C-alpha cells in the first residue's frame, strides 16, 4: 500500500511539473504580450514595465525564477492587477469557485440518485420514460444556456433571486443549480443503468422471491451496490465542476477563480494564469490521487492487478 501511494505521489509530482512547464511555455508562445494594445507604448515605458516584472530577462531565467518561487509557494505579483499578488487573488476567488462547485455537486447527487433509482424501479413504465427523457434533455443543457435563462426568469421577470454578483448567500442558488443540471442528469442515467443491472442479479431475485418489501430491498440491497459506479464518477465530476464553474462565473458575474483565469488569459497576465494552472492542476491531480488510492484500498481487482505488475 505504502509503495503504491509513494509511486502515485511521485507520478503526481512529475505530471504537475510537466503541466506547469508546458503552460509556462505556451503562454509565452501566445502572440501579444501583457502590455500590447491598440496603442504601442514608447520604448522608455515598455522598458520600465518589462523591467518591473523581470520580463526583459532570457526565458530560461524567467522559468527558473518561476519554479524557484513556486517551490517557496510564492506565485508572484499579478502583472495586470498591480495592487494584488496572485496568491491574494486566488485566496479571494477560490472559496467562491469551490462553494459553487460543491453546492452543484450536492444538488446533482440529491436530484440524480433518486431520479435514476425511481426510473430503474419502474423500469419501462411511463414514469421511467418521462424521467429518462428529462435526463437526456438535462444532459443537453449546459450552464451557458440555462444560466442566462434562469437570470431572465428568476431575477428579471420574477425578481426572486439576484441576477449576479455575490452580495448574499442567495446569489449562489441560481449558479449552483445551472451548473448542477447536466451533472444531475449524468448521475441519474448512471444510477438507472446500474440499478437495473443490480435488480437482475441473483441475490436480489432471491430476496424478492422471499417476499422482501420494495423499500427495504431498495435501501439495503440495491442502492449500496448500485452506488459504486456513481461514486467512481464523482472524482472526475468534482474536477469538472470546479473547472466548469468558469462559464457560470462569467454568466453570473461571480467573483470566483474562473473569471480571473479567463481574463488573465485574455490580458496575457502570465503570473495570474500560471497561478490558475497551479491551482486547477493541483486540485485535479489531488482528486485523482484520492480516487486512485480509494480504488486500491477497496477494489481487490485493482490490487491484484498492481501486485502482478509489481511481480
Amino acid at each position, binding site marked *: 500500500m505504502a509503495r503504491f501511494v509513494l509511486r502515485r505521489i511521485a507520478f503526481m509530482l512529475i505530471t504537475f511539473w510537466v503541466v506547469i512547464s508546458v503552460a509556462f511555455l505556451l503562454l509565452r508562445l501566445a*502572440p*501579444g*504580450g501583457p*502590455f*500590447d*494594445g*491598440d*496603442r*504601442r*507604448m*514608447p*520604448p*522608455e*515605458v515598455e*522598458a*520600465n*514595465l518589462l*523591467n*518591473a516584472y523581470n520580463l526583459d530577462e532570457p526565458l530560461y531565467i524567467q522559468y527558473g525564477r518561476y519554479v524557484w518561487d513556486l517551490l517557496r509557494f510564492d506565485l508572484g505579483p499579478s502583472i*495586470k*492587477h*498591480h*495592487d*494584488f499578488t496572485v496568491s*491574494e*487573488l486566488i485566496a*479571494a*476567488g477560490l472559496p467562491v469557485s469551490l462553494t459553487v462547485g460543491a453546492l452543484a455537486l450536492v444538488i446533482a447527487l440529491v436530484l440524480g440518485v433518486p431520479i435514476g433509482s425511481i426510473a430503474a424501479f419502474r423500469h419501462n413504465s411511463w414514469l421511467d420514460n418521462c424521467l429518462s427523457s428529462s435526463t437526456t434533455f438535462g444532459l443537453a443543457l449546459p450552464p451557458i444556456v440555462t444560466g*442566462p435563462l434562469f*437570470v*431572465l426568469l428568476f*431575477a*428579471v421577470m420574477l*425578481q426572486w433571486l*439576484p*441576477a*449576479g*454578483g*455575490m452580495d448574499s448567500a442567495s446569489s449562489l442558488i441560481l449558479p449552483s443549480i445551472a451548473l448542477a443540471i447536466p451533472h444531475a442528469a449524468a448521475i441519474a442515467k448512471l444510477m438507472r443503468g446500474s440499478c437495473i443491472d443490480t435488480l437482475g442479479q441473483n441475490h436480489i431475485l432471491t430476496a424478492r422471491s422471499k417476499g422482501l418489501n420494495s423499500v427495504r430491498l431498495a435501501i439495503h440491497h440495491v442502492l449500496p451496490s448500485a452506488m459504486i459506479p456513481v461514486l467512481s464518477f464523482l472524482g472526475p465530476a468534482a474536477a469538472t465542476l470546479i473547472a466548469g464553474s468558469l462559464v457560470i*462565473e*462569467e*454568466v*453570473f*458575474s*461571480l*467573483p*470566483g477563480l474562473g*473569471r*480571473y483565469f479567463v*481574463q488573465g488569459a*485574455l*490580458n*496575457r497576465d502570465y503570473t495570474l494564469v500560471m497561478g490558475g494552472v497551479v491551482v486547477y492542476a493541483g486540485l485535479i491531480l489531488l482528486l485523482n490521487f484520492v480516487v486512485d488510492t480509494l480504488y486500491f484500498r477497496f477494489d481487490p481487482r485493482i490490487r491484484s492487478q498492481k501486485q502482478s505488475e509489481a511481480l
Partner: protein
Amino acid sequence: MIQLRRFQGTCQGSTAALLCMLLASSILANELSSLRIGSPGDPQTLDPHRYTLNLEEHILKDMFLGLTTMDAKGAIVPGSAASWDVSSDGLVWTFHLRDNAWSDGAPVRAEDFVFSFQRLLNPETAAPLAFFLYGIENAREINGGKVEPTELGVSALDTQTLEIRLEQPFPYFAERLFYPTGYPVPQHVIEKHGSDWIKPQNWVSNGPYSLSDWKPQQAVELQRNPHFFDLENVRIDSVKYVPVADALAGYHRFLADELDIVGDFPAGEIESLRESRPDSLRLSSLLSTMYLVFNVTEPPFDDVRVRRALALAIDRDKLTQKVLRSDEIGNASMVPPMVPGYKSVVETNSPDLALARSLLKQAGYTEEEPLKVTLRYFTGSESKQVHVAIAAMWQEIGVQASLHHTELKVHFSDLHSGDFEVAQAGWFGENNPEHYIELLWSQIGSNNYGRYQSAEFDALLEQAKNTVGQKAREKLLQQAESVALNEFPVIPLYSVTVRNLVNPRVGGWYTNPRNSHGVRYMTLK
C-alpha cells in the same frame, strides 16, 4: 435584536406608528443615497499613476481631483487649480491652487503635485501611461532613466502656486492634465505605507470621494470625502462600482434593479428599450474614430488608385443606419465630428462605384484577375457585422475580400508589426484634432499601423506642433489632414456610440462625448 423588540414594544398607538413610518422612510432615504454603477470589469489598479483602463479612469475621477477636471457635461473646468496663466510662448503654465484638503484633512499643496509628477515619470513606478505627460520639460529623459526625476520641469513657486514648463507649445495641455496620470497622490501616505498606500485602510485622496472598500471582482466602494472643498454640492453619500462580466450580465442586473447605471448593454436590445424604457436609455457619440488602415508599404496597397477605389466603394450611411443601427455617426475625417472648433476639409467621398471600378482597371485588376485582399478585424459581434458588410460592398466592384479575425491583442500585435493588408483600427480619447491626425505621422512609430509617409504631411504637422495659437495650429492641421487623406492611407468610417442605461431616479447625468460622468454632480431621487 433586544433593542428592536423593546422598540417594537413602544410602537403602540397612532403616534408611535407614525414615528415608525417616519423612521422607515428615513432609512429608505439613506439607502437611496448610495449609487450602484455597473463597471465593465474589475479595476486592475487604483493607483492613478499605474492605471491603463477606461473603467479605472471612471472610478479614479471620483476619488481624485487633478489640476483641471470636467463638469457634468464634459467640459474642462478648473479642478485643484482655481485658475491658470499661460506664457505668451505657450511654454510656461502657472497654476494657482484652491484651498482643498486630502481625505485625512492634510492640505493639498503645490509640492504634492511636484512629488506626483516626478513619481509618474520615475522609471521605478513603471507607469504605463507616463508618456501622456512627455510634453513636460525633461519628462521623456527622466522616464528613460537618463535624467534624475528632480530635473522635471515642474516646480512649486509657493504652497499654492505650481509652475509647469513644456518643451513645445501645447494648447490642449489643460485637457491632458485631467487624466489620472495628472492626479496628485498623497506623498505623506506613500512615504509611510509604501506600495500598501493603495489598501482601503490606508487610502487618502483629494477628490469628492475616498475609497472605503475594495473586494476584487465584487465591488469598489467609495464614501464622501468630508474634507472636499465643494462638499456641500456632493449629494450622494456613497458609490459602489460593481464589475459585471459582460454587457448581457450588466443589462440583466440593471433590469433586476441591482444597478442604477450600466455603461453597456447588447446592441440588439436598443429597439425594445426605446419602447419599454425610453427614460433610461441614453445613447451618445463617443470621441472616437473607427477606420480601416492600409499597409501602404506592400502591394496591392502601395498603389493609391487601389486604396481610393476601395474607399469609394464604402457606403458609410449603410454601415451606420443598416448595419450598426445605434445612432453611430458616419465620418470621412480622422477627427471625430464632435471635436469643437475643428472643421475638416476632407471630401466626404460618397460611394462612386463606377469610378472605383475604373480605378481598379487602371491598376491592372480585371474580372478575370480580380483584386484579392484579406480584411482583418478583431473578434466581436459588432466588428464582424461591419466588416462582413464592407467585404460585400467591395464585392460590388469586383474585389474578393477574405475575412480574418483574431482576438484583440493578437490583432493589434499584428498591426504594430505590419503583418496585414487592410485592417480594422480605432482611436479613442481626446477632444482635439491633433490626437487623431498625428496617427499618420511618420515619426509616431508603429501607431501609424500602415507605415504611411508623406514629407508634405509631416512638414505641416510639425509646423502645427510648434504653433502657439490654437486657431493657427488647427488651420495647419486641417491642411495636413487633407494632404494625407487625399492619398487614402486610411478610410475613416464612423464614431462609435456608447450605450448607457441610467435609472430615472438618478439626476445630473448628462450624455457627453467623453462618456465621463462624475458622481459629484449627480443626485438620487
